[in-house]
């Protein structure tokens, strides 16, 4: 069982005839914590969605735990935290109910949840620090707390591979730290983690490999440089350094150190 957890060989993805990913070769080994970085539209989100089979490949092959994606059925080994603004829907749901759906990959239809399921759900709620909110409606929580609910849902399935799409986007520092702690627990258990991020923030110390996407290709793949984990330049920092677009005056997203080196944007 020395197969990599995730393998993408010569992967390419087209959306609406437009190439979004090209020539992707990626292997994530067991126990690695990989951060996928890149600017908006660089394909980082598409890359992880492709790995999960949510986006079809136009060429190349994706394998999970050594099995080609189309033959892969052990979905209980995979946890997914999708990118989203909120966890609410048309009908109220409690935190516990949403987290409990993380056990479905391990349950059979019409069979009531077992004791192990309920214990895993409670443990996942504890892990993200939402114990006293467990009976509350998800819609009543703050954005950061809702994101933590989604993380707990993925943790409840006790996945061997956890894939997170911008888990800390729009999440305040308190929640980010609670989330980083929850991930550290999972890493200690030997799980493999692939996460998409804009800035690593409190996650920095956990990450042992960075994959930087640029225009649908892998532009950098290696150990995270200090600059990746700390978004601050060490010297000469002032509080009004937001880079702005020359024409619109909008702040430019600083997605990776590679972008910072660039003077112009296409």
């Amino acid at each position, binding site marked *: 069982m020395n197969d990599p957890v995730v393998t993408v060989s010569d992967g390419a993805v087209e959306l609406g005839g437009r190439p979004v990913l090209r020539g992707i070769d990626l292997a994530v080994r067991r126990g690695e914590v990989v951060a996928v970085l890149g600017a908006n539209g660089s394909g980082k989100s598409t890359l992880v*969605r492709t790995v*999960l*089979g*949510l986006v079809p490949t136009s060429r190349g092959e994706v394998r999970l735990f050594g099995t080609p994606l189309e033959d892969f*059925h052990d*979905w*209980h080994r*995979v*946890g*997914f935290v*999708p990118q989203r603004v909120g966890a609410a*829907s*048309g*009908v*109220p*749901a*409690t935190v*516990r*109910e*949403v987290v*409990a*759906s*993380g056990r*479905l*990959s391990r*349950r059979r*239809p*019409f069979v009531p*949840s077992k004791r192990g399921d309920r214990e895993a759900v409670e443990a996942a709620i504890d892990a993200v620090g939402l114990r006293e909110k467990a009976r*509350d*409606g998800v819609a*009543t929580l*703050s*954005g*950061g*707390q809702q994101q933590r609910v*989604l993380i707990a*849902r993925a943790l409840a*399935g006790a996945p061997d591979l956890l*894939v997170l799409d*911008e888990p800390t*986007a*729009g*999440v*305040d*520092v*308190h*929640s980010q730290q609670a989330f980083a702690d929850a991930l550290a627990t999972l890493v200690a258990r030997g799980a493999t983690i692939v996460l998409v991020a*804009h800035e690593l*923030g409190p996650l920095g110390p956990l990450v042992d490999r960075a994959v930087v996407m640029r225009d649908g290709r892998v532009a950098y793949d290696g150990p995270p440089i200090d600059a990746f984990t*700390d*978004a*601050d330049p060490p010297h000469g*920092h002032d*509080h*009004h*350094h*937001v880079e702005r677009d020359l024409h619109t005056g909008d*702040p430019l*997203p600083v997605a990776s150190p590679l972008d910072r080196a660039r003077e112009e944007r296409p």
Partner: protein
Amino acid sequence: MSLLTYDFMIRALLGALFTGLAAPAVGTYLVQRRLALMGDGIGHIAVTGVALGLLTGTSPTVTAVIVAVIGAVVMEAIRTSGRTSGDVALALLFYGGIAGGVLITGLAGQSAATLNTYLFGSITTISTSDVWVTAVLALVVVVLAVGLSPQLFTVSQDQEFARVAGLNVRFYNLLVSVLAAVTVTVAMRTVGLLLVSALMVVPVATSQQVTRGFRATLFAAMALGTLASLGGVSVSAFVDAQPGATIVLLALALFVAAYPVGVWLRRRERLAAPFTEQGDPFPLADEHTEVPETHAHEHGEACGHPAVPHGDHVDYVHDGHRHAVHGGHYDEH
């Protein structure tokens, strides 16, 4: 004197009981997907099914089930194909259904009055075999809607997560559509095709006023639907009113009664939410100039400063400035 001394009344109450249980069970999933009007659409399409039954001399219930299921599957296909004109396509289907129904009924030489019994229900005229069909179909709907509630809840709530959890999302989506179609035809004789959607949606909206969880909403909606159906049939027997309309108005009355309770509960919940110091105990000068790397306090969920989403992060409005977390300190944005 008792209502139950009349056989037709017993059949009507049984029909109402099954409809009241099944319609909100499926309706909960439709509301969760924000497809509250889908039941209405299926009801329109089922009119054509009824008319085909009248034309061919077969049971209108059977033809209505078949046409409604086909319609629901087509609607699901249109919805998932993700065309921007999806809602227009659905509208075409709805009005095609009702116009086709009226036309075919005329061809069959039936009067509008016959069609009316299906459009607005005629629960007091249902036969023993109708009661059986209603009972069996309602039982199937309730068993699937409740038994598969963890799966259906997850698929309706977050499709991508459900796919990665290994659930067959397409199957479960189709199942909800087919269950909705079956429910519409079950409710056809009770409240009628034009009002069936009300019995699917209104009890759910009512129970949402007071519940926090999904299962609680589901079961409360089924209880409210049953209460409205049985109550509506009973009331209409005494005041000689249309049972279908009475049932729907009773369901709406329950909503009107529950709404102020919901407003009060939500208000109380907001007030109970942790709300920390309003005033800023730290003078402005301390925060930026003296210790640039440590802000006087950490902005967060409970810091009391208004949070403003800004691109990929959150700014906190602080004395007229917007503070953004940046590494170990805050930037002005």
